[in-house]
């Protein structure tokens, strides 16, 4: 079989195995959370019998391994379960499917992540390449210092600064990014401008510095000196001779930051009141809505695994040693 394809399939298999391990970790750590949904809902006045009846209804009375396998089994069939909240012991059930809760939020998060990535990745690559090109010049130092400043500032602070300048003093963008399913695309883009800008400032530094370092690392290679002695200009050296060999580390750091855009943006969501999946998960943890927490955690894990897999594949297809074995 094609060695690249077999490597990809191998990585994919490993990814699925990892996902199983992660699901066990998610499940057991959620079991260890203090408190109990039924007690939280029914209040301290509830009798032992009502609590027990409610636990039975939710299936919490079964032993943990049984619950785990039931959960994994239904997830494999595409069923993430039913949310705990909205149920009530009195018999009237207003609870919703986890999928219905999670999917709209997930799309919102992916939308924000996508918009941010479209700005941040090209920007970071551009800044990284030009910083490597004009290494040790004033430009390089300014870019480095500026990105370092934005990454060193807490993201909520960056968000408030942007709100102060771009929403309050010069009202260019709205300070609230509340959108729903009916919001049109143009309006959506307008509303997510500030959160996307905040996230861009947060992630550009890491990607830009890695790009610069990966390129500069290669500039000491004998084949770069050779290219120079063949008359290549500095920009040719960077774009044609260094960059093709630097994709693997760059792709890894981009994947890492894209994963962060999906799983780590809850603070920014709170500041801009953006209905993303991070907020959903925090709310679910507070109310001990176990099926929702588990679903979110699983989505986060899958995001990491998929993005890292993509980075690995990019690393393989940009390396002729792996793509064209001897």
């Amino acid at each position, binding site marked *: 079989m094609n060695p690249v394809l077999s490597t990809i399939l191998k990585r994919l298999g490993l990814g699925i195995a990892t996902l199983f391990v992660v699901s066990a970790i998610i499940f057991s750590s959620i079991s260890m959370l203090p408190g109990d949904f039924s007690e939280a809902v029914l209040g301290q006045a509830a009798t032992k019998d009502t609590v027990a009846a409610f636990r039975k209804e939710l299936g919490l009375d079964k032993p943990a391994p049984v619950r785990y396998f039931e959960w994994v089994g239904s997830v494999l069939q595409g069923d993430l379960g039913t949310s705990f909240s909205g149920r009530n012991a009195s018999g009237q059930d207003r609870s919703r499917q986890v999928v219905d809760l999670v999917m709209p939020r997930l799309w919102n998060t992916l939308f924000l992540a996508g918009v941010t990535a479209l700005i941040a990745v090209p920007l970071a690559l551009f800044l990284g390449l030009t910083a490597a090109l004009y290494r040790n010049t004033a430009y390089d130092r300014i870019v480095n210092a500026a990105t370092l400043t934005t990454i060193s500032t807490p993201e909520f602070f960056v968000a408030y600064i942007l709100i102060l300048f771009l929403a309050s003093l010069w009202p260019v963008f709205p300070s609230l990014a509340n959108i729903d399913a009916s919001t049109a695309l143009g309006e959506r883009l307008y509303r997510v401008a500030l959160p996307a800008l905040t996230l861009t400032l947060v992630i550009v530094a890491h990607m830009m510095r890695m790009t610069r370092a990966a390129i500069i690392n290669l500039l000491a*290679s*004998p*084949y770069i*000196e*050779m*290219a*120079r*002695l*063949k*008359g*290549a*200009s500095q920009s040719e050296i960077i774009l044609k*001779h260094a960059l*093709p*060999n630097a994709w693997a580390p760059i792709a890894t750091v981009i994947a890492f930051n894209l994963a962060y855009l999906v799983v780590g943006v809850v603070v920014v969501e709170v500041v801009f009141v953006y209905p993303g999946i991070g907020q959903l998960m925090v709310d679910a943890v507070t109310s001990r809505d176990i099926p929702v927490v588990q679903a979110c955690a699983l989505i986060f894990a899958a995001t990491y695994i998929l993005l890292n897999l993509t980075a690995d594949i990019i690393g393989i297809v*940009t*390396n*002729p*040693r792996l793509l*064209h074995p*001897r």
Partner: protein
Amino acid sequence: MTDKHDPNHDILLEMRDIRIDGFSDERWHPIIKGVDLTLRRGEIMGLIGESGAGKSTLGKAAMGYTQPGCKLTGGSIIFDGIDLAKAGDGEKRKLWGTRIAYVAQSAAASFNPAHRLIDQTVEAANRRGIRPDAESRADAVELFKALQLPNPETIGSRYPHQVSGGQLQRIMTAMAMSPRPDLIIFDEPTTALDVTTQVEVLAAMRNIVEEFNTAAIYITHDLAVVAQMADFIKVLRYGEEVEQAPTRQMLTKPEQPYTKSLWSVRALEKPEVKGEDIVLSIDHVDAAYGPIKVLHDVNISIPRGRTVAVVGESGSGKSTTARVITGLLPPISGSVSFNGEPLPAALKDRSKEQLQKIQMIYQMADTAMNPRQTVEEIIGRPLEFYLGLTGKAREARVIELLEMIELDDSFMDRLPSELSGGQKQRICIARALAANPEVIICDEVTSALDQIVQEGILKLLLRLQKQYNITYLFITHDIATVKAISDEIVVMFQGKVVEQGLKSEILSPPFPDYTKLLLSSVPEMDPDWLTNLLAARDS
């Protein structure tokens, strides 16, 4: 050759009073201290010297290029009327790769791993639009043919990792030749190659520069190699010119004492002594790395107090044999016996005493020592581990060992980074001696050293052998070293022993085919050697 020295022959490159500084240890040091160089069209100049002599720096300066960390502080470099010392980057870039080309030492590292060979070959010519791309590609195939590369039509579509080192070096010559430059700088182009490959590459390079009447500066530390290539030779030391003369004159009557000392190293020769008492014998050993079998039925017996040299090109199984003896690689079948007793195959099954009796010295002394340990710790460790020496007794023994390797106790507190290459290798020898071994395996121990330093190390090893009756298994690819140190020779090829015997037997006819090829490929200090060899091989 003589007509090239005609004063009317026009001058291509004229370097006057070149001074270059390099930055190290927080300050600038002079590397090149006022060297002159004149090269006429079509002439080949040999530039030789030990490492650190500044030959590579001077070679690159001929292009107007200085490496990062170096700067040109004085002098003029007139190439065909243009002063490269004053020219701007843009002006120099127009010459680089088109009128002046560079061939680097390590072809494997100097090709971009991300691009196909043909694309890299035509890159420089295409950049300046010397001819249409299709013509450049067709021309590259012709060059590949002229350089006797296999499959010249298709080899260009491969990536650098898909062809061998010798082929890469020839493709790099094609790359340099593609825009038909006036001058090529060859910077130790065959140093990384096996002798058998080196001959082919040398012949190919010489033919092609002759064919196109290209001028060249050929940089090397190997006198015999430069003798085949150059019309005249310049010797450099410590960034200064020692002397310059036409090749034949330089070889027959060098004037300066330094040049004479360079020449004399090759004359070292040890009288062989036959040995009967076998200390180590390797019987019917087969060994493999995973599924790839690398040793096939290897038999070697090593007499006590003698030196057995194992020779062969890279990949012949020399170092694997050493790994089997030390137990690092347990063989699939066969055995290693020490003093008549079979040794356990794997390292972990061997007793401390068995480990103690066989020690090893490596090619790269740099990487064989812990950079954070002092000389005393490095040598003291085996004393403590094998002999249980501590405190004063250990210190006294370390000083003794340092004296044995001709160093004094002022070295005790130094770190490896504070030692020269030769001193590092001496410390490694002392570390091996510390265990009181009977057998020392020397794996290419002099290959990374300059000729004069090599001579010192070889003499030291011979003296220690005489004093302590130590047995050496000496792995090398260099025949001059073999002549200098061995009693017996084992020739290996593709994981098999081709022959074993006394030095005089192996080095005199009749030869098996491979030994003949190997021995005839070793360059000799005769300017006609390559020509005669090629003529002999053709017939």
